[in-house]
């Protein structure tokens, strides 16, 4: 349908983006790849000899690596489940007739605008702190022992903080999708005697599947690299119980200043992220016929 003319124009129009992103990917990546084969510590300048796969061996046999891998998956999965289930419920609620819907929407959307560093600081100090935090106060008020969130449930606490930040995003997308649901069809189904649960599972959920896919795609991209929240709250600890891959690479390259090891970790993280990406893209491809 399109002419030769518009085809070449199209190619011309897309090329700046492709070239820039290619450069952004290839230049640092090739340097990272190169560094990953060197013994290169920032604090010990010198020859930086070639050491083959030594950095990779060290990174992959690090006892922290396996737990970082699981933590990453738990973190991404946990946040996705909470935000999607919570988002669907909230969207259902906000779709009901009520007074002041606009204001409620403003309240719900707010966490999305908060800097990750700020939200982590606020949650850590003013809510989860076991002595001066609001949760501790509530526990004491109810006659309970204050629970030390960041020490005893570090990963769950981080999941909670991150979910709080991403719930508005999921809610908004799902709400928009829900509002496009044909209300006459819904009413017809109701007339036919379909109960609210049946209507939800046979009409609402299928209608939302496309929106849910989008939420999963976009959030996963951001959740794989959650970093500030961990740095601020737990520093990956206690032990390695809240260290994700990004944080492990950070510890290697910016706490140990081991550029070689950190680069090897970076390459591993990139490979793993791409495996996740392939899965995602498959799923999206099916569900989101672009």
């Amino acid at each position, binding site marked *: 349908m399109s002419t030769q003319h518009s085809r070449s124009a199209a190619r011309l129009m897309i090329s700046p983006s492709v070239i820039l992103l290619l450069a952004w990917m290839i230049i640092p990546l090739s340097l990272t790849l190169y560094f990953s084969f060197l013994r290169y*510590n920032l604090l*010990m300048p010198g020859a930086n000899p070639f050491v083959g796969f030594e950095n990779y061996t*060290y990174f992959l046999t690090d*006892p922290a690596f396996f737990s970082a891998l699981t933590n990453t998956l738990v973190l991404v999965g946990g946040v996705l489940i909470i935000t999607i289930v919570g988002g669907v419920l909230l969207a259902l609620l906000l779709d009901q007739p009520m007074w002041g819907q606009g204001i409620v929407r403003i309240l719900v959307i707010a966490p999305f605008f908060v800097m990750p560093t700020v939200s982590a600081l606020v949650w850590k100090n003013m809510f989860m702190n076991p002595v001066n935090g609001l949760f501790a106060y509530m526990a004491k008020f109810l006659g309970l022992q204050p629970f*030390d969130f960041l020490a005893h449930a570090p990963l769950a606490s981080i999941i909670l903080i991150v979910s709080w930040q991403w719930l508005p995003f999921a809610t908004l997308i799902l709400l928009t999708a829900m509002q496009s649901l044909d209300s006459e069809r819904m009413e017809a189904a109701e007339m036919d005697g379909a109960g609210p649960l049946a209507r939800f599972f046979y009409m609402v959920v299928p209608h939302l599947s496309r929106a849910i896919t989008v939420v999963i795609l976009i959030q996963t991209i951001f959740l794989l690299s959650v970093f500030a929240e961990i740095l601020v709250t737990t*520093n990956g600890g206690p*032990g390695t*119980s809240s260290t994700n891959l990004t944080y492990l690479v950070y510890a290697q390259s*910016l*706490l140990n200043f081991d550029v070689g090891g950190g680069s090897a970790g970076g390459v591993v993280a990139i490979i793993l992220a791409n495996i996740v990406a392939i899965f995602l893209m498959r799923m999206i491809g099916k569900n989101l016929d672009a």
Partner: protein
Amino acid sequence: MTIRLSTLLGATALCAAAGIASAQDTTITIATVNNGDMIRMQGLTDDFKAKNPGIDVEWVTLEENVLRQRVTTDVATKGGQYDVMTIGTYEVPIWGKQGWLVSLNDLPESYDADDILPAIRGGLTVDGELYAAPFYGESSMVMYRTDLMEKAGLEMPDAPTWAFIKEAAAAMTDKDGEIYGICLRGKAGWGENMAFLTAMSNSYGARWFDENWQPQFDSDAWKATLTDYLDLMNNYGPPGSSSNGFNENLSLFQTGKCGMWIDATVAASFVTNPTDSSVADKVGFALAPDNGLGKRGNWLWAWSLGIPAGTQKEEAAKKFVEWATSKEYLALVAENEGWANVPPGTRQSLYDNAEYQKVPFAKMTLESINSADPTNPTVDPVPYTGVQFVAIPEFQGIATGVGQQFSAALAGQMSAEDALAAAQTMATREMTRAGYIK
């Protein structure tokens, strides 16, 4: 600070990091920690500018961990973003050896470098060259609540033992009244829990490495250290102690929730400051505890100002370092904020000053500093220097990892034995990798 927006906007866009500075007006960029004394220094910038016309100062104030990461990256890659860096006694010897810092041996006579406390000065000198000027120095000591001690019917000796500390902690603890006998660092990090635990382990006769750089976490001395520490904290410590660092404990102590606190001597001025502390008039001081082995559990640290080699504003930077670490600066702070708020622990003349001697913690601070010996920190011989750290580049990484394990043990996620075994494995691995263990 005044807003000089127009100049800044122009300057930012054009001269950037290249450092194109005109002869008349030099702007130096100073990276510093957001600790109280540094914030005070920032507030006194005008005095520096008045004495050094033509030099303008830009501050980059960051939280300690962020700062350390930023300045280390910058100095190692010769990024040139800062002209003066706030660094500690851990960095100075390592960086000095690499030639990353400008020698300060040529500061003028009037600066009186010989007045700097020998223990502090020694830690900042490499091969006879002073590579950073101390802004404030600290050791660690016991800070305790005199009222609670009295109530418990005990009397704190000037030089307590660990056994006494335990006894006192037990007697002072009143969990229903939210009084915890002892507050100690538990947050993982080489400068947090490991600073305390390494210093404590010295007094238990433990060491990080033997003469062949073999890690020693499998020793009985380390086991005793960690077991006693966990015992103290689990029974008499505040909740959530595995995420408490210096600042968290300071807040706890200031709000009256700690009976004793063993931490940096510099905290003394905060806990006795009536505007911030609800217990200001009820604080006593004692040397850090020992076990009768000849070493006390106190550390030695100095936040210092260093100038990265290769800065194009070396002259101006030196002027600043000289100003901020001079006797005149101490007098200036005393005049504005009172003697108790003067940055402590750097100059003998301060401790000779009759006014300063009236400050309740002056004597104990000086004694603590003088009793620390970075060149000979442990009971058994070691191949390294540094009291609460080991001055090798690998230490940060290893100690942070070890600190994570000990913090996990404090949080109840693993036993002391497991934590020590994990620490031993980790340290051996890293030391082998770095080529210390052949």
